[in-house]
């Protein structure tokens, strides 16, 4: 019974495939999985928008949307109707073709990221050997779509937003990759399924998640920071800073194209959360051995939604960074720290099992964190800012 519930979607797919002639089976099998992903994540997106608005409201001591349906639960439907019925405006001077393609490219690229994410036991669309590589390759192409949007709009705010976005995403792509490489160094595999399987073991009822190791914890924090920046989330939401750039690279988008950008942004959050879950939080494995009876896909989505909630929490807490602060943080703190973390992983690996590696690795990271924090903060001169104007 427990196994059936765990594998219910897999069994359902096999049952449907059994009804079809063998020729069609591979194609339909893939299509079914794709449809499942295309249905699940936009639905989660709708849920997340209302969750975010309610959550932010509560953080700011407001109630949040509560007019549509009980507790405002139908808000996404109202938003959807609104964005569908709005006029789709293309600026006269815009490059119409690129302007039209940009949101599509974004959404397609982000959806591709889900192809390699294991969402439950035996629940992965394609079990690529180089799944992690594929994820980052596809994820990097979202920058293309953002720059397409900013460039084709022929609007200075769009272009500024796009340039900020590209600068930011390229800067944070590096620490994102570096923090993930730590996991690859330990598992020796780029396959996300394999990485999750490695973590799905228990000692004294506790899981072997990488976040519970010193290097894993550090890598996870760095991954979370870089992931926030990758998805343009607050406090790294400079590309769409409303107070500075109207809406950043999608200033000139309206109606459903705007909604697509919005969808793409949230899908990016899900993808980054899903990857973080797979890499550091044990993917679909239960947090306690005693809880393994709960279906694996519930754990995966629970972890993803938990990270989304933390993202919302951070958005409700931190103000936006300045561009130079953003860059300084990426290149002078996050990147060196992830590089150091790789050394730490190597030390962990070659010290072999035992208590010694826990002490040594923790000490390295804590001292490095403290020293870098002190250094970074002492160099910061707080005081009246001086401006030098261009001549």
């Amino acid at each position, binding site marked *: 019974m427990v196994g059936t519930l765990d594998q219910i979607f897999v069994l359902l797919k096999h049952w449907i495939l059994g009804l079809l002639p063998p020729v069609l089976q591979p194609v339909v099998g893939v299509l079914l999985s794709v449809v499942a992903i295309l249905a699940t994540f936009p639905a989660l997106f709708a849920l997340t928008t209302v969750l975010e608005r309610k959550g932010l409201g509560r*953080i700011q*001591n*407001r109630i949040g949307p*509560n007019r549509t349906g009980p507790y405002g639960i139908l808000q996404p439907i109202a938003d959807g109707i609104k964005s569908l019925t709005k006029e789709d405006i293309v600026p006269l001077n815009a490059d119409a073709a690129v302007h039209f393609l940009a949101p599509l490219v974004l959404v397609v690229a982000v959806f591709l990221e889900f192809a390699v994410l294991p969402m439950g036991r035996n629940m992965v669309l394609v079990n690529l050997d180089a799944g992690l590589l594929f994820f980052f390759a596809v994820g990097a192409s979202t920058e293309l779509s953002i720059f397409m949007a900013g460039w084709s709009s022929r609007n200075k705010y769009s272009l500024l937003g796009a340039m900020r976005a590209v600068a930011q995403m390229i800067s944070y792509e590096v620490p994102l990759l570096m923090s993930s490489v730590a996991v690859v160094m330990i598992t020796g595999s780029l396959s996300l399924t394999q990485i999750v399987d490695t973590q799905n073991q228990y000692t004294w009822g506790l899981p072997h998640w990488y976040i519970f190791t010193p290097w894993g914890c550090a890598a996870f924090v760095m991954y979370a920071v870089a992931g926030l920046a990758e998805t343009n989330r607050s406090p790294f939401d400079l590309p769409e800073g409303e107070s500075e750039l109207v809406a950043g690279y999608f200033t000139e988008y309206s109606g459903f194209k705007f909604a697509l950008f919005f969808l793409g942004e949230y899908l990016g959050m899900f993808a980054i959360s899903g990857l973080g879950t797979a890499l550091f939080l044990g993917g679909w494995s239960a947090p306690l051995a005693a809880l393994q009876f709960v279906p694996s896909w519930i754990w995966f989505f629970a972890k993803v939604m938990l990270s989304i909630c933390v993202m919302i929490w951070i958005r*409700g807490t*931190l103000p936006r960074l300045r561009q130079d602060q953003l860059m300084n943080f990426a290149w002078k703190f996050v990147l060196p720290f992830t590089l150091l973390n790789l050394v730490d992983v190597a030390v962990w690996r070659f010290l072999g099992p035992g208590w010694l590696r826990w002490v040594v690795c923790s000490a390295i990271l804590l001292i490095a*964190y403290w020293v*870098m*924090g002190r250094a*970074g903060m002492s160099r910061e001169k707080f005081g009246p800012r001086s401006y030098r104007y261009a001549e």
Partner: protein
Amino acid sequence: MLGEGILKGLAETARNFAGSFVDKERLTTVEYPEERIAPAEAARVFPFLVYDGGDWEKGLRCVACQICEKECPPKCIYIEKSKDKKPDYAGKPQIYPAKFDIDISVCMSCQICVEVCPFEAIKMDNQFELATDDRFGGLLLDRKQLAKSNEYYHQIHPTEATAVDAHLAAEKLKVEAKAKADAAAKAKTAADAAAKASTAPKPSDGSAATPASAATKPVREGAESTSPAADKQTASADPSTAVVRGTSAAEDKPSRPDDKPIAQGDTPKNQDAKGKEGGN
């Protein structure tokens, strides 16, 4: 330590998040259409016309003196005087506004009309839910829509309304006392004339004049004409000046024939402005 501030901030927002579910002090939102806070007594939105008694048309305090119309900075008041007269609160015959319109799409709630009104006839309302689907006709309030009873005024601004009532009562007393004094003076002059004619009794005029002047003295502090010598002048003065509080604006109050052209000159301008608005 690096990141300490972030953790503190996260703790603060978490406290807000949890607190807003349990603590009424934190979640101060009033869900407006369903629940309302009673407006503060000092709250004031657009002006309205006060009337006394049960009949709004008869009880209007306004005497169409047009001071408010002239003082109104955005010129949102339009008044037409009546041809006939009707008695005011003190029983004196006064003209009344045949037409009194306020365009609340123009009105800026500055309260200047209220400040200048010598008759306590126009006061500030506290109704703010005035949305309408007709932005011209729906926002142009005529005198029937503007007329609200004194009881209503008491209800929305109790302190102010009580003060106004006391003031009006004092004014009324003054008018009555003056009328009495005038009557007494008249009687006295008549008696003097009669006495002169008959060259006879003194005690009769003494008994008639003394109580009247005694009653008049405490009430009319500003008036200079309680002495029998100046009585004649008082009797000949316009009776309506007795009601006036002594503001400079009140000097204009007695209806002058040259008011009309100004008022008419204003109206076409207003209509022009409105037409332009409609064109947009």
